[in-house]
């Protein structure tokens, strides 16, 4: 009891009422007042006297301030979650969704859709353009191969015509002793004065760049040049028309320097054949 009296007289309760205590002291005072009714009564006395003192010292604030402060507190009611809204429950149900955001998002989506469509269209267009290009290329290739084919057919027709033509005689030129494997065919029409050599059946060694084969016709024992030709690596289906001549007893081919010679080099004779 002595302790409690001393505690009361220490002045701590007064400081507690004045809010001039540390957190620790505060908890201590609160523990004391909850434990000892005497302390609680003392505290209550102090509080009442200070409250009365404050009331004695009261200053009435201006009349306008009452409205202002109450209004500010009442305005806060709307934002106050803890305040019961039982007086205006209908208001909550009266809230109508503002339609603007909906329209807003419609245009947003429409714009996005348009953009997507545009990108898709451009992509499709590019693809179509590429396909068209490919098709055009193929068409060109096809038409050129077609052209080649038709010209080949025309040429073959012509060649076939030569063999069918009874005026043409086909002479087999056989290899000389040096070149026994060499062989070629010459078609000669004295009436049309045409000499053709069959490039497809040309069985001669390949000539180099410095030399060419030269076809000779023996007319009355003398050689007459009928022009030069090449034996290339790739076989040709052509029949090559040589220079014209009205008559000949025999044909021969020699290997001559490029461009041909005036007289045949006899030791370079590849093939020879006569009627």
């Amino acid at each position: 009891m002595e302790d409690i009296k001393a505690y009361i007289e220490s002045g701590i309760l007064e400081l507690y009422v004045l809010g001039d205590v540390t957190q620790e002291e505060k908890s201590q005072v609160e523990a004391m007042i909850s434990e000892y009714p005497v302390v609680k009564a003392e505290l209550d006395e102090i509080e009442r006297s200070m409250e009365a003192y404050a009331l004695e010292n009261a200053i009435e604030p201006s009349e306008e301030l009452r409205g202002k402060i109450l209004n500010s507190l009442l305005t806060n009611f709307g934002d106050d979650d803890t305040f019961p809204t039982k007086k205006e429950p209908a208001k909550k149900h009266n809230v109508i969704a503002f339609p603007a955001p909906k329209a807003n998002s419609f245009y947003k989506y429409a714009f996005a859709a348009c953009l997507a469509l545009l990108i898709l269209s451009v992509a499709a267009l590019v693809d179509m353009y590429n396909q068209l290009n490919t098709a055009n290329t193929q068409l060109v290739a096809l038409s050129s191969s077609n052209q080649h084919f038709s010209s080949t057919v025309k040429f073959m027709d012509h060649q076939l015509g030569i063999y069918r033509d009874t005026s043409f005689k086909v002479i087999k030129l056989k290899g000389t002793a040096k070149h026994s494997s060499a062989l070629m065919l010459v078609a000669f029409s004295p009436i049309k004065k045409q000499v053709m050599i069959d490039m497809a059946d040309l069985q001669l060694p390949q000539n180099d760049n410095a030399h060419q084969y030269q076809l000779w016709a023996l007319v009355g024992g003398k050689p007459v040049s009928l022009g030069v030709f090449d034996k290339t690596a790739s076989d040709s289906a052509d029949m090559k028309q040589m220079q014209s001549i009205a008559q000949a007893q025999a044909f021969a081919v020699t290997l001559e320097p490029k461009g041909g010679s005036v007289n045949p080099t006899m030791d370079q004779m590849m093939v020879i054949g006569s009627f």
Partner: protein
Amino acid sequence: MTRKGKISLTEDELVFSLRNREKIAIEALYDMYSSSLYGVISRIIVDTAAAEDVLQETFVKIWHSFSSYSTEKGRLFTWMVNIARNLAIDKLRSKDFKNQNKNQELENNVTFIDEQRNTVYKPELLGIKDLVQTLKPEQKSILELVYFKGYTHVEAADELGIPLGTIKTRLRMAIVELRKHFN
């Protein structure tokens, strides 16, 4: 807002209706305590507009932090007056308020200084002066500092040049004196 007269409730009723967040509780709270609280605030802050701001802040804070008040820990007014005093002191020490005071216009200086020095006659302070005079001068000065100016007892001891123990005793005696007076 029309006024039909001040609303008054018992402290228990008031606490109960404040807990239930009833609208009438705010009006009752204001009518019952605004002048007492304003009395304390306006002794710390002389400027009327600033004191009124603090009174408003005080009520907002009381309303929003009411859940932290417990009757176990003391009377409602004790809790509220501490909120008011702390807000007033915060305001007094705030940068804005200090700057505002430095930037007083020249022509207002005379009245401002008058207000600061409290030489203006305020009829509402008449009763207090009498009352405070029933206290001994040393009790009066300590109450002035701690209760009205918001000094801590440590600051008051420093200001008056008295040991801490003496300050506590004087403060207690002053309040004992008040208790005699009011009871």
